[in-house]
């Protein structure tokens, strides 16, 4: 495998081949980000179908079976198609630039790990048009329900296998890049936090994606080859699937939030014009969150009938996660304390993240309380919780990162007025969309049901209105991105006054090849320079 480019400088090749055969980390990063944006729109369209059906009680627009396919597909597309590829795209673009490396460590594998994804999602989405339809038993694929799916289920499982292979290859690449490709002097504790959180995320991916692959393989053999891993009639146990799945599933939750922590930890210091408060504690907090994520899985399944001791263990372990997460929130707030803050769009999204993600964190703590969870389990309260941490958490952080680095990627400044409008529109409507769902859940409305009793009608209508408005607002984001790619005010190398880090030492747009010779590190240029 070719690693460091010591050969002569050349410009980007032209035409379609540039994208199909690319081994350039910037091109592949762009592909990942555009793919993620496309999937965000596809998954969003599915969410619109869900909110449309739930606009009023009764069955109005879609068949219940199709509704169930929409909830399942919306989750799979958003998790594996939108959020995860967006983070991998950001990693591809930014990690080499941030650590002064010429490219990713394994550029050809990089090409593979991206190009698997369009095929995986073509296969996943094509099940919607097959006999038996797409998966409809929820994205968690719990047996015995998921084992009653049609034959198209095999395609779903194969698609998940492909997504897993893509993620694992991406993760191996990130680890090899960070451990082997850093510029001289870029010690581990000088790395930007985005690099740190991605390093930890990559280890999580390698640890748990294979477990998911194992779990869905067992589903596959149970469904098609007469094994009985999860089939009680043959001596298996369906609850075991939930254990295996959440052993993957909980670290997966942190896979989707740790890089977001990293992005926000880059942006807040830049616009507060102060170094990040408590850099080392941020690193240790991320690592402890990653460790804890392996020992809390059963809090997703308190109601399966665990002994009291088990429930207490998983409850307390879950609550302990609030400590390192709290450290992070306090550090972000302390970074802003007495800073010379300005509120450009990336900063607005980062601040929105800090506030709204914290709300999602608190509802997570409520869910962690075993006696309360029996009431909340599988209600809209859970839906509200994970949308606060994933939409106003992960997605807001990705938006923040996109606005922050768009000038570096495209060489143009985006339209600040439109960006700010996009933020405020999103921040208001996302709360109209998801906040009422807390009340719906507390009142007992179950999730994944196309119809509901009339007492839930008002809050559902409010939530749906919020959903439509939030959804339309994201088309504005697409418009802003396309407009910025096409043109706009020229961006300087250091596009933001307070921005630090090696990525701002190269011109905007970043040339096709950067850091062919390792950069000289200058502490005043680094976000986290100097001793610790």
């Amino acid at each position, binding site marked *: 495998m070719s690693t460091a480019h010591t050969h002569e400088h050349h410009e980007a090749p032209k035409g379609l081949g540039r994208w199909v055969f690319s081994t350039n980390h910037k091109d592949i990063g762009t592909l990942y980000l555009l793919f993620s944006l496309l999937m965000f729109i596809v998954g969003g369209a599915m969410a619109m179908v869900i909110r449309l059906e739930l606009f009023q009680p009764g069955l109005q627009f879609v068949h219940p079976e199709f509704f169930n396919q929409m909830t399942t597909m919306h989750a799979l597309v958003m998790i594996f198609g939108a959020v995860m590829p967006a983070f991998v795209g950001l990693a591809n673009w930014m990690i080499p630039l941030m650590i002064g490396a010429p490219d990713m460590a394994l550029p050809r594998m990089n090409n593979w790990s991206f190009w698997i994804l369009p095929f995986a999602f073509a296969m996943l989405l094509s099940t919607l048009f097959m006999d038996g339809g797409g998966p409809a038993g929820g994205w968690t694929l719990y047996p015995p329900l998921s084992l009653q799916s049609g034959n198209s289920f095999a395609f779903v499982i194969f698609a998940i296998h492909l997504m897993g292979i893509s993620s694992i290859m991406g993760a191996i690449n990130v*680890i090899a890049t960070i451990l082997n490709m850093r510029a001289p002097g870029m010690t581990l504790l000088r790395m930007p936090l985005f690099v740190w959180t991605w390093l930890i995320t990559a280890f999580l991916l390698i640890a748990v994606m294979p477990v998911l692959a194992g779990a869905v393989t*067992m589903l596959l053999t149970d469904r098609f080859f007469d094994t009985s891993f999860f089939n009680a009639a043959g001596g298996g146990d369906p609850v075991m699937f939930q254990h295996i799945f959440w052993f993957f599933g909980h670290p997966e939750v942190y896979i989707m939030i740790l890089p977001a922590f990293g992005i926000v930890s880059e942006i807040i210091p830049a616009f507060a014009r102060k170094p990040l408060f408590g850099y080392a504690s941020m690193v240790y907090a991320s690592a402890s969150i990653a460790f804890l994520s392996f020992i809390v899985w059963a809090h997703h399944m308190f109601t399966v009938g665990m002994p009291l001791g088990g429930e207490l263990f998983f409850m307390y372990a879950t609550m302990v996660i609030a400590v390192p997460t709290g450290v992070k929130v306090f550090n972000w707030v302390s970074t802003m304390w007495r800073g010379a803050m300005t509120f450009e769009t990336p900063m607005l999204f980062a601040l929105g993240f800090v506030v709204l993600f914290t709300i999602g964190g608190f509802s997570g703590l409520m869910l962690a309380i075993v006696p309360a969870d029996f009431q909340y389990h599988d209600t809209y309260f859970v839906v509200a919780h994970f949308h606060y941490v994933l939409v106003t958490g992960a997605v807001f952080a990705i938006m923040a990162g996109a606005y922050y680095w768009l000038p570096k990627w495209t060489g143009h400044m985006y339209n600040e007025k439109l960006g700010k409008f996009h933020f405020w529109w999103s921040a208001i409507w996302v709360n109209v969309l998801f906040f009422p769902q807390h009340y719906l859940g507390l009142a007992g409305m179950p999730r994944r049901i196309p119809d509901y009793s009339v007492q839930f009608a008002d809050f559902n209508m409010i939530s749906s209105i919020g959903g439509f408005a939030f959804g339309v607002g994201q088309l504005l984001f697409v418009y802003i991105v396309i407009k910025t790619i096409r043109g706009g005010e020229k961006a300087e190398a250091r596009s933001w006054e307070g921005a630090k880090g090696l990525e701002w030492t190269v011109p905007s747009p970043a040339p096709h090849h950067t850091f062919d010779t390792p950069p000289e590190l200058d502490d005043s240029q680094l976000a986290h320079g100097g001793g610790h």
Partner: protein
Amino acid sequence: MSTPASDPNPSDRADTQQAANRRLIRRLLVVTVLMFGFGFALWPLYNVFCAITGLGGRTGQVTNEEANAQALVGDERWVTVTFDANVDVKLPWRFQPYEKTMQVKVGELTETHYLAVNTTDQSIVGQAVPSVAPGEASLYFNKTECFCFSEQVLEAQQSRDMPVRFIVDPELPHDINTLTLSYTFYLQGDATAELHQHDHEHHPHQNQDDASASHTGP
């Protein structure tokens, strides 16, 4: 962590970096494969864990002698046992307990009956899978006789009384006062097919439906 980039010669640097990358990839791939295996290893681990803790709700089997031994140490303590019956959608049987709930003296062998009815015109083989809730109690719930110990064959339209003899261990924790014994009957597809094939061999002049109807049972 070594920084390979500190090597002054660029081509050496590329070589050492490639070697380092290869080493790292190899290690990470090993981790990936091990974790894939770990997913499957969770299956036996889970079963062992459940057998020790009783979490799976599997009930135990004891001999009459063992049951009598438990009876000797039993004191005056009563618990409620409720009985539950389910039939998998693929099995066209009716299945229900005669008694929905019983007061049971701890440490005393107790007998109750379930009724199973084959509602079709074919003989069918079924297998009942028991489960006790709460899971912790399953460690203290043992049976000397149960229809779930073996496959059950019901002829066309046949109904059968099926006894369960069980004993609740006096060691049952004192915070457990109610136990639920639940059975789910599943179709044994292979055994049923075999049964019908068997019928054909013995009654070659009859069609399959007649064969099942006239079959006198094992």
